[in-house]
């Protein structure tokens, strides 16, 4: 170090940002022109950073020593040595299982909708097409269909045994158009889906039993069902 004690003091103040604008400008001119002063400035800058590292390393050692003197940190069972949860295998496995169960559940639900109740299944398997479809299910290009669009939809749903979907449509026909056939089909649909009390209520209703043909059908179905 070739600079005087006074110049070293000036360089220190410069590095710490404590010079006035005038003093700073004057020193910068000297640094540009005096090689020894400039060399001391460069060295001082590096040495000060070296001192900083040394202090910080000492503080880190002190904290490590402190850590050794206190009870250790309890490991976090859930997260220890594992990536964030959304990146973990568990997360993806749970996701796949949930999606699989949702698809399976939806499929079961869909299948069950058109399934007959356990009690009515044998009866419907044997006799439904022959005895429970009372409207014409044959379509012809040259014969006009006498059914309305709403009736066709509701009756067709009934005919293909989609009872859950058919019931609200048949109910509409009964309520709005007073369609006795729809009301009868609704009773049969309730029977098929296991709602026996509602089925019996409809099939023994005056609207049905006042029609001899429907009464005979309803009586025979209920009698057979009760066997």
């Amino acid at each position, binding site marked *: 170090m070739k600079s005087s004690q006074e110049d070293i003091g000036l360089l220190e103040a410069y590095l*710490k940002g404590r010079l006035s604008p005038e003093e700073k400008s004057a020193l910068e001119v000297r640094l540009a022109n005096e090689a020894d002063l400039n060399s001391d400035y460069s060295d001082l800058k590096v*040495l000060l950073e070296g001192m900083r590292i040394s202090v910080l390393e000492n503080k880190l050692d002190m904290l490590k020593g402190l850590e050794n003197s206190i009870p250790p940190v309890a490991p976090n069972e859930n997260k220890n040595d594992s990536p964030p949860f959304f990146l973990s295998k568990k997360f993806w496995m749970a996701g796949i299982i949930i999606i699989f169960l949702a698809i399976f559940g939806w499929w079961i639900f869909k299948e069950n909708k058109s399934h007959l109740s356990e009690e009515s299944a044998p009866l419907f398997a044997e006799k439904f097409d022959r005895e429970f479809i009372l409207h014409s299910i044959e379509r012809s290009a040259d014969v006009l269909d006498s059914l309305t669009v709403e009736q066709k939809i509701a009756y067709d749903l009934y005919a293909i045994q989609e009872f859950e979907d058919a019931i609200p449509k048949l109910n509409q026909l009964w309520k709005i158009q007073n369609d006795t056939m729809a009301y009868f089909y609704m009773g049969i649909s309730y029977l098929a889906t296991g709602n026996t009390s509602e089925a019996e209520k409809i099939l023994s209703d005056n609207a049905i039993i006042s029609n001899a043909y429907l009464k005979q059908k309803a009586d025979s179905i209920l009698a057979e069902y009760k066997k």
Partner: protein
Amino acid sequence: MDWILKIKTDDNQALREIYDLCREECIAWLQNDFGLSVHDALDVFQVSVVILYDNVMTGKLSTLTSNIKTYLKGIAKNKALEMLRSRKNRIIANKYPVMAQYVFEENEKVIFEEQLSTALMSLEFLGDPCKSLLQLYYYNDLSMENITSIMGYKNTDTTKNQKYKCLKRLQNIYSEHINKIASN
């Protein structure tokens, strides 16, 4: 609690208190939010406390606008991400001590790593009492009166002379080493 004043006046005690206050919460947070192991979380936490200290001492942090834990978590978050990034990119652990690496990165455009590691080595070579005297003056920014009292010197003139001599000795050691490196 004025943590900045506390760090400036009684640094070791302040660091111990901050360490105790934030340790459990910060380490659990580092494990939960960044998936760090206890060991890594502890490393990141300790380095973060030291960086907090450095920020106060170098004047980067002059007023604490948030809670001390929040400020510390801000540093720890950056350090944790840095650690995860270097693992992802398979960066080999640096040959220098962790705090040296931190200062290197801050100075990389101005000072070479080799110069800083030589300065650090020269300081170790210089030893005490010179090393402590220079650190108290340059890093801790203590007054000559305070240093005189801490070091047990007769008066401030003695301290000033001693500081100048120590700096000269340090620079000689440093120049010798750096010239050797240059000639190789």
